[in-house]
């Protein structure tokens, strides 16, 4: 009986999760269009949270952007990589729409040879880990949060 109740709860949770996806205005990765190096509309339809974005940027399990990019705004973090350019003042160089395109799929903006992963793209490598097949590195909301954070990096 206990087991049954538990199964039911799990099933209910699954239904709720899929409904959430079906009803949100979130754009699926394959529907995102990059034109003139821009993704013009928010992936969620709403604004990102720059403070969250700042955390995602440093989090090794999420953006891990610091692995490749230094940024003076996060000098409290040890070890900033230098594989990519420093992102100080990046919002002076790119518009938010361009920054969104870079984070979504950098290969569409730079070259296909770039080392930078596409964070909201299903254009991935071979033999993707089984539990990650069909999944993007960041969610639409996390991309918006990171873009909002990048937009604060002005000099």
């Amino acid at each position: 009986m206990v087991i049954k109740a538990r199964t039911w709860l799990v099933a209910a949770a699954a239904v709720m999760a899929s409904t959430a996806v079906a009803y949100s205005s979130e754009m699926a990765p394959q529907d995102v269009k990059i034109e003139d190096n821009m993704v013009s509309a928010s992936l969620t339809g709403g604004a990102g949270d720059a403070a969250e974005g700042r955390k995602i940027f440093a989090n090794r399990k999420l953006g891990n952007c610091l692995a490749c990019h230094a940024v003076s705004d996060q000098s409290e973090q040890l070890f900033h990589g230098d594989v990519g350019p420093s992102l100080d003042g990046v919002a002076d160089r790119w518009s938010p729409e361009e920054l969104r395109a870079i984070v979504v799929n950098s290969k569409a903006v730079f070259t296909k040879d770039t080392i930078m992963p596409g964070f909201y793209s299903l254009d991935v490598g071979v033999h993707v880990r089984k539990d990650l097949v069909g999944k993007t590195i960041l969610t639409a909301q996390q991309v918006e949060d990171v873009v909002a954070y990048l937009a604060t990096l002005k000099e």
Partner: protein
Amino acid sequence: MKKQYLVSVAAIAMAGALSTAAVAGGPVDEKLVIDGEIEMTTRTAPPEGHPLDELISGWHYRTVETRALETDSFENPGMLGVEDGEQIWNTVEGTEGKSCASCHGDAAESMKDVGAHFPKWDAESGRPINIELQINKCRTERMGAEAYKFDKGGQKPLTAYIKRQSLGTPVSIDLSQGDMQSWWEKGKEMYYTRTGQLNLSCATCHEDHNGQFIRADHLSQGQINGFPTYRLKQGALVSVHNRFRGCIRDTRAEMPAAFSDELMALEVYVTWRGTGLSVETPAVRQ
């Protein structure tokens, strides 16, 4: 903010000008001499058809402290593994009542320079084999002992002991044996194939971006002349296939099995990419 930006621009300009010096990135410009007498070739011209201008041992990318550990056989923590390997070499195992030494005698003579020329073609199995697989062949075919499982039993120490007998010898493999060339081709294809959710190939990190920092890690050329290496972080010897699997896992991909055709092909190709570098086993890494 503005001032900081100028400083970092200056640093980048400097690093560009002195690209091989010990500034912000790049391999250090120093010589590796072990125990004050064995001069190692840690930088060398590549073989024909190689994509890099210069081959550089991973030693050059490590910190002062880590580099120092490798220069002295008493300080090198990997030497404990080598000593274990020597014991195993002389220990009788299996139904035939033999040790490695029963057939091969003194490894200092019989195994001198041998490790520098693996992987080799194995006609019997029709594929390349590395030292680990050669050890397993001897165990099963001659000693009546069980094959070591990947990274288990004496596999790492014995491999390290055998490779240590080639300390300083330049790596070179014979691609004219058997079908080695086609395994090289297959390994090359793997090296340039992007894997996983992060969509990276070996070349993305070790060819395009060596010398740069990926968070705290100083990217090297990913050479394997020092394997098994001693990793300070793990406090243990690390085998080539363990390292390959780790790098593939980090791209968020499924990992091929150790000694699978995929990883043997990769080992053939990556060994060739280090042609001419001295065997450094056991190299010390962070």
